[in-house]
């Protein structure tokens, strides 16, 4: 088995074992979305109109929730030293960890989003589109957050710093994600352009995120 898949499988295994954060994100997402109708009130038209935005915001916060421990646990127990000494480029190791995080934290969000949409009066037949925008956009969140996780690696309570660093960078993803979802659900703007830009954001961060995070880690260990 290659080093890449070994690391990917280890991180996924850790996420679903006791103490891992796999379900935390999905539960947080559930809570946030459930609280919204209580705060806004039973105005179904209003809920349907802002539903996509709430789902996207919830997914954004939930995906960042477990991200601060992505490198911090490996740093604390010395694994990060060995990851850097491995035969694989650090960029690839970082990417493997990010993919494992996306599969265990973000993919469940995409899966439960249609169910949560029911609470926000988003029509059932449009939920597929909304899930599609989340599927295309959440990799960008993970791979942008990767840089923040690398920056806050040696800090106790780095989670807050991570959110402050990363959330402003995710604004474009949020804008085009919600725009694409609204275009699909409410119209009248076409779905294509914002969705394409969303995909482009994901692809670009997929390439740039690991490079930036690996450089950050190397610098930070000095």
């Amino acid at each position, binding site marked *: 088995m290659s080093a890449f898949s070994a690391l990917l499988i280890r991180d996924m295994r850790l996420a679903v074992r006791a103490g891992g954060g796999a379900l935390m994100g999905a539960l947080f997402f559930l809570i946030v979305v459930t609280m919204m109708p209580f705060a806004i009130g039973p105005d179904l038209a209003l809920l349907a109109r802002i539903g996509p935005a709430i789902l996207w915001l919830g997914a954004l916060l939930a995906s960042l929730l477990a991200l601060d421990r992505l490198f911090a646990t490996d740093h604390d127990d010395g694994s990060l030293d060995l990851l850097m*000494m*491995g035969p694989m480029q650090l960029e690839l190791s970082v990417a493997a960890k990010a993919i494992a995080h996306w599969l265990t934290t973000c993919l469940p969000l995409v899966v439960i989003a249609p169910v949560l949409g029911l609470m926000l009066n988003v029509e059932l037949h449009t939920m597929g589109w909304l899930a599609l925008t989340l599927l295309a956009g959440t990799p960008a969140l993970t791979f942008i957050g990767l840089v923040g996780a690398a920056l806050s690696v040696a800090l106790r309570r780095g989670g807050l710093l991570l959110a402050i660093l990363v959330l402003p960078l995710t604004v474009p993803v949020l804008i085009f994600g919600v725009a694409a979802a609204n275009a699909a659900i409410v119209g009248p703007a076409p779905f294509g352009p914002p969705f394409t830009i969303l995909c482009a954001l994901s692809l670009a961060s997929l390439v740039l995120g690991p490079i930036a995070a690996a450089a950050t880690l190397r610098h930070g260990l000095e």
Partner: protein
Amino acid sequence: MQLKADGLACNRGGREVFRDLSFALAAGEAMVVTGRNGAGKSSLLRMIAGLIRNAAGRLQLAGGAPDTAIAEQAHYLGHQDALKPSLSVGENLRFWTEFLGARGDIESALNAVELAPLIDLPAAYLSAGQRRRLSIARLIAVPRAIWLLDEPTSALDAPSQKRLADLMRAHLTGGGMIIAAAHGPIGLERARELKLGPA
């Protein structure tokens, strides 16, 4: 194969830890780095492992795989054990073996450190000495020429220390090199000593 250091210097946090450090270590030789707390023993090992940058000087490995960094031909056994408590003993070792690119035999490596009966136990239940032995098993499972050991005998009981000394001797006989930072004897008779000056 020879590891050669020439005029190494180390700065940590703006403070000079050591400078002008030179040594040469041939295959089959062991070197014990001694010195007071803060003299730079751990920093030297981490520098050879490529984990901190040297402020000056050169580190060379002659006769090894030429395109491979020293870090990729070295094992670093630090103060931390690099184990995940929620994975079992076998899973922890198997991961590092696969990640470090070896097809190592996990059972025999665990046998070498007398942990084979615990292969399915989560690492969370290991004692400090057992955790140490499990990370030593990594050095056995993945063959690499240079062993960088930072106080390898800490937390080990007397029989385990003897076992470690046997493993180190076998590694040296096979043409490996060992650089260990230690305060006390590590059980190698013919190890050279490198004394780092007072900080």
